[in-house]
């Protein structure tokens, strides 16, 4: 077996004045090339924190306490800022959550799409423009020439997200981080965007970290997934196993809470308080053991 594309091991992140509040608790996960790995959980589970930790854009106040994030065997956490930026810039890219704020409202799409190509690939303005047009075509954008001249506010939400996907795949990255890329979109547009991300990913053999709170989205787009609660892995494995034979009670409870139009009798069962209590107890036990070690 070859080395994984991305290997996170025993990652711990903390916040608070003295780092007293854990945000991530010993999270480990491997992502192979060409694989879509879902980071699933409810708000506060730490799924976005992991994505931000990989990209090195953790918000002020959150820091990594221990662990490693290895990209093709190179631990990102040991690199200095500039070599880390070089490595990330050429190999990892982001599809952000909000397609409106992620684009600069005052610059045309062309300028924003060609920036990376010129900076990282050293393309001339003309070559970058040609490549950008190809990319827009690849993300099935109608009238790419017109879109290149447009400002972000002239595009619909779905079109903006297509532009951002084009930008994300522009540099042929090995890893794409998709941070809840469809939460701001209508369901029909969401489906098109998911289909597009999956198609691009399969065509380019890209590894994808897919952050989402929607188990339905996980089922459709992810190969493997990590289910988090309060920064701790509750269950990890192939999506098929997770959905068909969930081992952790929390996974099962979340499945039962999901409404399903095909089975109106099932779903919408509130997560029993005992399940949350067990999860919290599990985490408290982990924290105690950890405190004992230090």
């Amino acid at each position, binding site marked *: 077996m070859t080395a994984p594309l991305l290997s996170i091991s025993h990652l711990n992140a903390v916040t608070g004045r003295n780092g007293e509040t854990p945000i991530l608790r010993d999270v480990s996960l491997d992502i192979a090339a060409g694989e879509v790995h879902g980071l699933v959980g*409810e*708000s506060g589970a730490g799924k976005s924190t992991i994505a931000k930790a990989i990209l090195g854009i953790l918000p002020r106040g959150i820091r990594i306490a221990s662990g490693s994030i290895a990209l093709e065997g190179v631990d990102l956490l040991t690199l200095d800022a500039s070599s880390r930026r070089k490595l990330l810039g050429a190999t990892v890219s982001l599809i952000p959550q909000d397609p409106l704020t992620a684009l600069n409202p005052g610059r045309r799409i062309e300028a924003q799409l060609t920036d990376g190509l010129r900076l990282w690939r050293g393309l001339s303005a003309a070559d970058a423009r040609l490549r950008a047009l190809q990319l827009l075509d690849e993300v099935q954008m109608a009238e790419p020439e017109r879109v290149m001249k447009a400002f972000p506010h002239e595009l619909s939400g779905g079109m903006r997200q297509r532009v951002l996907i084009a930008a994300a795949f522009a540099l042929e990255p090995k890893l794409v981080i998709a941070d809840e890329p469809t939460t701001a979109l*209508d*369901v*029909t*547009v*969401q*489906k098109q965007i*998911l*289909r597009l991300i*999956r*198609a691009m990913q*399969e*065509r380019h053999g890209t590894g994808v970290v897919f952050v989402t*709170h*929607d*188990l*339905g*989205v*996980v*089922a*459709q*787009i992810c190969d493997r997934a990590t289910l988090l609660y309060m920064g701790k892995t509750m269950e990890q494995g192939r*999506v*098929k196993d997770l*959905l068909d034979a969930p081992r952790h009670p929390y996974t099962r*409870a*979340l*499945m039962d*809470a*999901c*409404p*399903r*139009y*095909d089975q*109106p009798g099932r*779903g*919408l*069962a*509130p*997560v029993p308080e005992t399940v949350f209590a067990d999860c919290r107890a599990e985490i408290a036990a982990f924290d105690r053991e950890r405190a004992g070690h230090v």
Partner: protein
Amino acid sequence: MSDPLTISEQALIDARGVVVAYGGQRSAFGRAKPEKRVLHGVDVVIGRGQTVGIVGESGSGKTTLGRALLGLVPVADGSIRFDRHEIVGLKEDALRPLRKRMQMIFQDPMSSLNPRHDIRHILIAPLLLHGLARDRREAEVQVRAVLDRVGLPASALERYPHELSGGQRQRVGIARAVVLAPDFVLADEIVSGLDVSTQAQVLQLLGELKRDMNLSMAFISHDLSVVRAVCDRVYVLSGGRVVEQGACEQVFASPHHDYTKVLIDAIPLPVIDPQWLGRGQRST
């Protein structure tokens, strides 16, 4: 489910040919803005004790329709009867007696609760306004009962909206809607910002309240799975028109309109379906 026409006899809300348009009026200096129609003649009937789903994507007019049913936006044409009272064209003062019978729960509980008022004020003020409590003491008793009913501790009364969690805020929003004991509640995308586990709790609570208080509800949502779970009937809106309507079982089992089919098919189910995204079919 029965036919909407037969329902209309005992319907709580009976809206016919509702047209809502923005702009169009002349301003003081005579510039007429072009009129933009948001609803093009919509019929909606909500029976007593019924929950009706209104689904559609952004721009479909579902939010406007909901607000029109409550008399919150000016209606250009058509009729909306609430318990046989025509509300189209009524002035705010004339509408006030009906106000306490129709309430609304909002999508974003943070922005729907005044950040400057504590929860006590938010819940007590409407009771005093409508004379449902003689004094603050009596209102306080009622408010505590409602708070308990929605599963919040009495200590929440002292809190300000920003001091509560998202789920707690949504419960306050529900408490405010039911504290006047209304007949009709409009729920506008009320669970779209919530986690799955919180969503299930909130919807369960709403179901109980609906049963206990014999509420009629309009449930606006883009999530058809949720609509299927909580609604009796459903209206599918697209471009300001109802493209399909009927009993939930029937619409979900055999949708007639193509748009309904697309909408239903766009919901990702937590079941692996490689066909759904066309996975593994390299399309180059």
